[in-house]
């Protein structure tokens, strides 16, 4: 691993009295693909959102590409240009066509000219296999197509790091594959990626490392074979058994360390 592209140290995050992250330390190297897995409420999405400061950490530091994101004086808008983010709900701009979704941020944020922005947009749409949808509106696309456009929109900004927040969780099962294929392509090209996901096959085959979170802490961190194949901790085993074979789960008492809202 060369210099860490993402470094998180001593990260805490509370919503009111609800402590969602309880001290996270994590390093992600350049070109590394890290999948973050864990039960809902484990704080994995919150961790991801702290990396580009969509959530303000209560305590701790986050560095991306050597810049401290958590520094109050940092130009957060400039820092975010280097960090692409893909959301569970796609969040395409519904009032703009697919191409305009890609060109508007380039023009307004990066101040690229019309022709250059259009060229970059076309290239990135081709990369995700949606060149023919350039003039469509998001509402006319399937979920899988919308998510690929969202990825292309993030890529058009030329990010050094990509964050994925459960990118396939809102998709119909048969559409998941197209999105994962695009993410696999990015991984093969050497993009640094942090992916919150429930797709164990993707984690196993594409990730360099898998991080298992529960109750606001990192429980296990290692190679996919180790974390998914031979988990050391009981909590990991329990989570994986429920995920891989949900029909076998038994009714049980709610545990109190299920923290907070949303993944």
């Amino acid at each position: 691993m060369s210099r860490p592209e993402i470094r998180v140290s001593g990260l805490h995050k509370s919503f009111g009295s609800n402590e969602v992250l309880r001290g996270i330390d994590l390093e992600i190297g350049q070109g590394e693909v890290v999948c973050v897995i864990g039960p809902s409420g484990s704080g994995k999405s919150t961790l991801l959102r702290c990396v580009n400061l969509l959530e303000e950490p209560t305590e701790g530091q986050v560095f991306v590409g050597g810049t401290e994101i958590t520094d109050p004086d940092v130009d957060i808008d400039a820092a975010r240009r280097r960090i692409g983010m893909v959301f569970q709900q796609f969040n395409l701009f519904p009032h703009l066509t697919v191409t305009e979704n890609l060109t508007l941020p380039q023009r307004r944020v990066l101040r690229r000219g019309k022709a250059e922005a259009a060229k970059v947009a076309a290239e990135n749409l081709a990369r995700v296999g949606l060149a023919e949808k350039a003039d469509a509106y998001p509402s006319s696309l399937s979920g899988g197509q919308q998510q690929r456009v969202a990825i292309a929109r993030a890529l058009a900004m030329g990010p050094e790091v990509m964050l994925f927040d459960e990118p396939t969780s809102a998709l119909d099962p048969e559409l998941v594959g197209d999105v994962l294929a695009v993410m696999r392509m990015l991984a093969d090209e050497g993009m640094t990626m942090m992916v919150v996901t429930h797709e164990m096959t993707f984690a196993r085959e594409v990730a360099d490392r898998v991080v298992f979170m529960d109750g606001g802490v990192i429980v296990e961190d290692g190679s996919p074979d180790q974390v998914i194949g031979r988990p050391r901790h009981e909590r990991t085993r329990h989570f994986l058994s429920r995920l891989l074979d949900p029909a076998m789960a038994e009714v049980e008492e709610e545990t109190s360390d299920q923290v907070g809202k949303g993944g």
Partner: protein
Amino acid sequence: MTDTETRLQPKKKGLTRRQKRGLSRGIQYAVFVAAVIAFAVAADWDRLQNQFAQADIARQMFPDVITLALKNTVLYTVTGFAVGLALGMLIALMRLSSVGPYRWLAGIYIEIFRGLPALLIFIFIGVAVPLAFPGTEIIGGTYGKVALALGLVAAAYMAETIRAGIQAVPKGQMEAARSLGFSPARAMVSVIIPQAFRIILPPLTNELVLLFKDSSLVLFLGVTLEERELSKYGRDLASTTANSTPILVAGLCYLLITIPLGFVVRRMEAKAQEAVK
């Protein structure tokens, strides 16, 4: 089991549900027809026609009622709407500001101007402003005063509409824009407000219809002959001709604009419904 069966069976006694429904509808039609007949018989149509529908008086109103009165009404409405929209946008953004005093100020403005009759605001602009700031002329004379008065009234309503529209845009839109590197202000202008306006286009058009009618309050500012709008023009002519036909014609002129506008609003609402699906 037998219990439910008996309940679902039509009762032997009295009317069935279907018969009751038919009877209810029959009564409603009967009341309607009776009311129309009573109205037609009771009203003195000859006198009404004499007073309100004199063709020669109506004829002599043209073309002035269109080229002068309707033109002024539209002009007052459009300029008032423009002022109201700009001011309303400002107040809506103040209302959503993270700076407390801006929020309070916007709230106070909205409460006051929503609570006051438009008539009082017109009188206030016509009397109090010249008193308070002697020597200063509101730009554009009467036209400026009308735009300001109508704008002040409309802004309070529009601010609330715009605020609701901005808040109706899903949170993910702002997050997506911010994560792409937009500053909060730029995200607001490029991403949020365009979407908010699509949501609030129907209520904003309704506001335009309301302003169109409120423009008749101009007469409380004191207008010259050339500045008269539909209501004032109709009333003036009604008193010179000692006949109310001009009032009817002026009224029809309002409907000439408001009915198509209402149609446009319904079209937009239907389209918005479709876009949501």
